[in-house]
């Protein structure tokens, strides 16, 4: 299975110094389980992503672009030529001008499925199929089986990145890649505004009463919280209760009704 991991010129959120985004370092580790992998970066300076070579990647293709140019056409052209089965990217940018939309734009350009927030991936049971674990809110996760080509964006709950090894950077290779794609400035469709704190609405919270009452109502505290506690139940009974709960919270579909 051919894997390409997209690398961006990120910045450390505090110091502002150049750094490989952590999500992309995690993507490299995640992709290693799938097959031979190359990095791909489109931008003015390949050195910005050299750190990825110390994280377990041995080769990076670099498409030289002018500063401020839109990387999507170049990346799409490169990916079309390489035709990987899996494209990995971080779920969000960690740099200057990044919008986090590049993986979506590429999936559209390539006609590939995009699965966001992936925490694990492995080859599926038959060729061309990949088994993917996707993070859901509140620590939940689900398993998906998808057919390649796919674009996967990596969630921060994926396994820790591999520690950086300086010596491997020296051995890694960055190769220039020429693509024929129009170089045009990125369309800046975003407006920047200073941050304004907005009150958070608590759904279902009563408007009146004291602050303590509203908190109780919002958090479901107050009266003894309903809980189903079964002490040494029969296995069948326990299994029924678990199934009923899983259906209630929507992990399992409702029972199929005959007729």
């Amino acid at each position, binding site marked *: 299975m051919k894997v390409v991991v997209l690398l961006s010129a990120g910045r450390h959120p*505090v*110091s502002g110094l150049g750094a490989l985004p952590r999500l992309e370092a995690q993507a490299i580790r995640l992709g290693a389980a799938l097959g031979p992998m190359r990095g791909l970066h489109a931008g003015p300076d390949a050195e910005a992503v050299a750190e990825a070579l110390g994280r377990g990647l041995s080769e990076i293709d670099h498409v030289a672009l002018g500063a401020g140019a839109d990387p999507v056409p170049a990346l799409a052209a490169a990916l079309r030529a390489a035709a990987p089965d899996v494209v990995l990217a971080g779920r969000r940018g960690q740099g200057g001008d990044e919008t986090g939309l590049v993986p979506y734009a590429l999936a559209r350009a390539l006609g590939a499925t995009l699965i966001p927030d992936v925490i694990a991936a492995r080859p599926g049971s038959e060729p061309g199929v990949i088994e993917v674990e996707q993070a859901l809110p509140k620590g939940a996760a689900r398993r998906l089986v998808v057919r390649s080509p796919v674009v996967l964006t990596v969630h921060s709950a994926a396994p*820790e990145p591999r*520690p*950086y*090894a300086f*010596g*491997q950077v020296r051995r890694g290779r960055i190769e220039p890649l020429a693509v024929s794609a129009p170089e045009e400035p990125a369309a800046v469709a975003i407006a920047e505004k200073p941050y304004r704190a907005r009150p958070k609405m608590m759904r279902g919270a009563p408007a009146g009463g004291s602050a303590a009452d509203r908190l109780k109502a919002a958090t479901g505290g107050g009266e003894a919280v309903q809980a189903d506690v079964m002490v040494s139940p029969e296995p069948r009974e326990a299994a029924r209760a678990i199934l009923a709960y899983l259906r209630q919270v929507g992990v399992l579909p409702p029972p199929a009704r005959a007729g």
Partner: protein
Amino acid sequence: MTYALPALVFVMVALATVQTLRRAAWWRLGAAAPVAWGAGLLALPKRYLVDVHHVVARDAYASRMHAVVAGGLLAATLLAALAALPPLGGSRIYWAAVALAFGVTAAGAVLVGARRYPKRPKRLSGGGFQILPVLLLAYAFGGLAAALLLAFGVASAPALVAAVALAAGGGLGLAYEVRSGPMRHAVAGALHLIAHPRPRRFDGGAPDAALVALDLDAPRLGVETPADLAWNRLLSFDACIQCGRCESACPAFAAGQPLNPKRLIQDLVAAATADERAYAGSPYPNARDVAAPTEPLFRVIGEGARIHPDTLWSCTTCRACVEECPMMIEHVDAIVSLRRHQTLELGAVPAKAAATLDNLRAAEELGGRPLAARVDFAAGAPLPVIGEREVDVLLWLGEGAYDLRYGRTLRALVKLLNMAKVDFAVLGAEERDTGDLARRLGDEATYQTLARANVATLARHRFKRIVTSDPHALHALRNEYRAFGATYEVVHHTAFLLELVEQGRLAPGALGGASVTYHDPCYLGRYNGETEAPRKLLDRLGLDRVEMARHGRRSMCCGGGGGAPVSDIPGDARIPDLRMAQAAETGAGIVAVACPTCTAMLEGVTGRTAEVKDIAELLLASVEAGR
């Protein structure tokens, strides 16, 4: 018959030479290293009689034992060889002298035996080492009997033959043991003293503890197999007599972490030797499983290799082992060079350490915090930031400045500097981490980047000297940045405050009553030889100062050095708990510290009865009491 003993000596010397040459083949597997042979040879007597003896003498019994047995052995053997000269061989006075020398050897051999039988102290190795007294006794008593027979002119051939045979049994055994037995330490030890990789440590000045800079363009970074070590490092490991002094001093060993410096050195010997005898000393505590010993010259570290990575990462780089080693072995150099390979080539660092190194690389600070926040501890107190003007003192704040507890110490220090009207300033947001932690964790690349950046920053400013309360920063700035052509006068805050008190710029009053014990930071005491200024300062405060059993250059580590807190290798106990228990034994109500790491480690001990206070805090309290 007068030629029997000298003949034996010549055979012994020949056998020992053959055995040494066989062993030398292994040393030559190591990498090349520059060695000043002439200077080393000339310095050998002084290095042996002064430097080695200084360490050996800490164990009075061992020191006496060694002087008698080694002195007797050398004297008796040399004297006996002289019998080959005709006039001597016939002189009964001469034989009486030979008998005397063998008698001394015999007394020494008895001392050696008495230490190991009936019960051998835990820190000594058994195995082949248990045979040593037997060989010594045989050689000494055989030689003694033969020399006595000749001295008294007893012409009994059978008696003489029996005596020389006994001496031959012992003597040839000793000579044979030069290759892989206990006697190896004598030959390898002497050669090691001549070709020592750190000849400067014998110069008598401050300790030579700065790590050697790594060439980042070298084809292979750090030490993977024993052949990556310099040949004189391999030689140095052969000097080990397995006395276990390093093991008794090692804090990680005491805490039940899987590290034993003696075993580590023996593992490195075995890793470079095909037929090394089985190790018979104390093991690594809670030893992790490793694969069966692999063939020699294979990679040393790994779960499938000879030494488990946890062993490597347990070390606090406290240098207690180096300080205690009578054979002048440099354990910390070996450990760091092994770590360098793990970190730089394999990226095999413990997870928490990896996150810290990421921060150091991308934020130039190990917590990933803004550099400008380093001065936040001052909480509004006047803290001048350096500008165009030259200042007398540049105050290097270090990592401790981000720590809430340590902020109190730094505020006390700043207050004292202001009281004494010291012309000082800090670098503010221009101060980066010194890279000390990265270096100890083997990340020489990050260390060198940070060091170069700091040297460039310091070159932009004008100051007379640097004062810091962080011994780790002090060691980096004073000793290790020299490799980047930067020489600064760096003063520890305790020495600087003592200076201010002695000049009368600060007037401490008596704190009275309380008793205090001072915990020496490894990077100040053992790494820089500074143990007196803090004590003198404490004595000015009218406190009742008591010493812990382990203090000064022989102090025990708090457990905070060498990245041990971020590597976090589990053991049976925590090193700071052990150290605070030692402090509690003195009954002192205050443990005085002089390092941000010691402060954090010792104050983090639960259920402690003593207060942990930096010397700056104590001085401030006393100055305020004196007003």
